[in-house]
């Protein structure tokens, strides 16, 4: 083996194959690894290193640094140009405060890099929020669609949404797609992304049927995130889906065929009209949404979602739904004055025997009420034999001290034998009321001898450990 042979091989595909075979050979025959032997290779070890090591290092450098390696030596002239990950973020272009100049500079830079690039591009990412929509992006997508792209992230500025060209849908090797501030529609001929594992749309303008069709035509989809893509009535059919994150204004939400779902987070904003319209519907949203997700491990319900979920919940006592893997629940806000919302929260908690952490925020726009209305609810609908045998941590915020909230706390304290910490943050500022609330809470029996209540009044937490009870 001599130097010239190695340099000849270097820039060809044969290099990789020969090298891996040589390594196999050396492993099988316990030959001393040739990489280290000084008399076989020149002292400059790195330039003749397996391309995978160089590639691994180059893709971890900001793109400008990778580019500058072209000037190291003649062997390095083109090494950068075959890196398979191209990431353009704030570090990629010198900082410039003139928006126009920055835009031009970024566009030119990216176009040049792509033009000089050779070989496949597996990952392409633009997370440069100053980059506004422009015609060049069309060309970049076309270029990438011919380069076996697998991981594509396009997070653009929001002056004008970029209209995605249809060539995106020919990228059959896509495993991850992350778009922000774009507009798209599925071509009729689109049959799906067979390898797509993760999909994220943030402010993407697209007809709802397109989203549903997209999801159901990606058989391997495991993660789906939809943020601020508004006014959608969405039905999700995704047999492999494990992680679902939804945020925005939705007209209607329905989970059909998501049996493997493990994490679910919904922040739903309901306009007033929508709320009225939906109230008239007779569907039980709790069943519609949570009826077939038995493997759920984590559930977050924010903004109006608890309200949405409680629509149509006339009587949940006969439901056979159990969430045996559900360990973490967060619901914020919950209006404890609304019977259906109380029922929803109670039903969810009592169907989760392995719950470990619970976080609930009260509704901040109800004034403290001393009304005893409807307190029978707790006698009638609160299962007395309920045990949350794994619940260790409870965080209750924005507690306005309404009796229903107090009853809820009483219920929690009474059914959690391993509870360690309960944090209570009241929303009422009146110290008298706070004290009254505190005194009430102190009276409640606790199933857990270890339970400590942290009652946080502004900056002075009052920590009530079991030993401070009289």
């Amino acid at each position, binding site marked *: 083996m001599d130097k010239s042979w190695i340099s000849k091989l270097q820039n060809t595909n044969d290099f990789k194959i020969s090298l891996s075979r040589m*390594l196999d050979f*050396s*492993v*099988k025959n*316990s*030959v*001393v*690894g040739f*990489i*280290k032997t000084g008399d076989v290779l020149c*002292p*400059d*070890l*790195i*330039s003749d*290193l*397996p391309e*995978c*090591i160089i590639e*691994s*290092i*180059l893709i*971890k*450098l*900001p793109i*400008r*640094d990778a*580019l*500058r*390696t*072209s*000037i*190291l*030596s*003649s*062997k*390095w*002239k083109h090494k950068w140009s075959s890196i398979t990950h191209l990431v353009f973020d704030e570090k990629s272009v*010198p900082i410039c405060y003139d928006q126009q100049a920055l835009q031009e500079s970024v566009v*030119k*830079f990216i176009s*040049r890099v792509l033009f000089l690039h050779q070989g496949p591009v597996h990952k392409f990412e633009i997370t440069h929020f100053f980059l506004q929509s422009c015609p060049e992006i069309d060309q970049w997508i076309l270029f990438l669609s011919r380069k076996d792209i697998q991981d594509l992230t396009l997070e653009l500025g929001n002056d004008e949404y970029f209209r995605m060209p249809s060539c995106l849908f020919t990228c059959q090797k896509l495993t991850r797609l992350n778009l922000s501030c774009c507009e798209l529609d599925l071509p009729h001929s689109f049959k799906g992304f067979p390898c797509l594992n993760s999909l994220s749309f943030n402010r993407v303008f697209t007809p709802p049927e397109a989203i549903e069709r997209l999801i159901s035509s990606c058989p391997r989809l495991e993660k789906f995130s939809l943020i601020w893509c508004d006014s959608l009535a969405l039905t999700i059919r995704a047999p492999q889906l494990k992680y679902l994150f939804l945020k925005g204004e939705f007209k209607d939400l329905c989970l059909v065929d998501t049996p493997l779902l493990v994490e679910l987070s919904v922040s739903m904003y309901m306009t007033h009209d929508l709320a009225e319209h939906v109230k008239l519907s007779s569907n039980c949203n709790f069943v519609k949404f949570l009826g077939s997700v038995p493997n759920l491990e984590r559930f977050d319900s924010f903004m109006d979602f608890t309200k949405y979920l409680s629509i149509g919940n006339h009587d949940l006592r006969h439901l056979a739904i159990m969430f045996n893997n559900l360990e973490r629940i967060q619901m914020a806000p919950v209006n404890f004055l609304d019977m259906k919302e109380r029922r929803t929260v109670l039903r969810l908690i009592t169907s989760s025997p392995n719950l470990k952490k619970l976080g609930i925020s009260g509704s901040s726009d109800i004034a403290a009420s001393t009304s005893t209305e409807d307190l029978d609810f707790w006698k009638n609908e609160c299962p007395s034999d309920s045990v949350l045998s794994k619940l260790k941590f409870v965080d209750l915020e924005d507690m306005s001290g309404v009796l229903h909230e107090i009853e809820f706390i009483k219920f929690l304290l009474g059914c959690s034998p391993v509870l360690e910490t309960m944090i209570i943050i009241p929303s009422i500022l009146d110290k008298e009321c706070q004290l009254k609330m505190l005194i009430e809470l102190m009276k409640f029996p606790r199933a857990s001898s270890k339970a400590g209540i942290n009652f946080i009044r502004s900056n002075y937490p009052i920590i009530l450990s079991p030993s401070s009870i009289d």
Partner: protein
Amino acid sequence: MASSSSNLISLKTSDGTVFKVERALAKTMKTVQAIIEEADANIYMIPIHNVFSHHMDMIIDYYKLSVAGKSKEFSVEKLDNDELKDFLLAVHYLNMEDLFEVLTQAVADRLEKKSVGYVRKYFGIENDFTPEEYAAIRKKNDWAFKGDDIEPEEDEEKQEE
């Protein structure tokens, strides 16, 4: 005598030291795993060339930290550039994915924003451009060299030598 049902695998480094490691750790070394799987009989001792005992010490440290969920605490800061390169080659030979990623990231971090001269020295790369070639490439890719945050080229005048 180590049998295949034992939980410890013996690895012999280039400097002759024998390390007895858990099977789970040996599994993270794909090269070693391949040897074990291909062997018909029980393997007594596996020689790992290109790997020295100080490399194995660090590998074991990393393994212990990652099992405890503290892999982020693993640091190669105390290694100088040559030692880091050597370690990287050893880990590459053993084909250990996670540690390889950690080390290539460490190398990348040391190179980020450095001047071309520094990178040449670090890797031991000889500049074989003629001054004209150098100037031509530099000019062509000038757009990549702009920026206050990058170290200036100290050795550009030296190109004339």
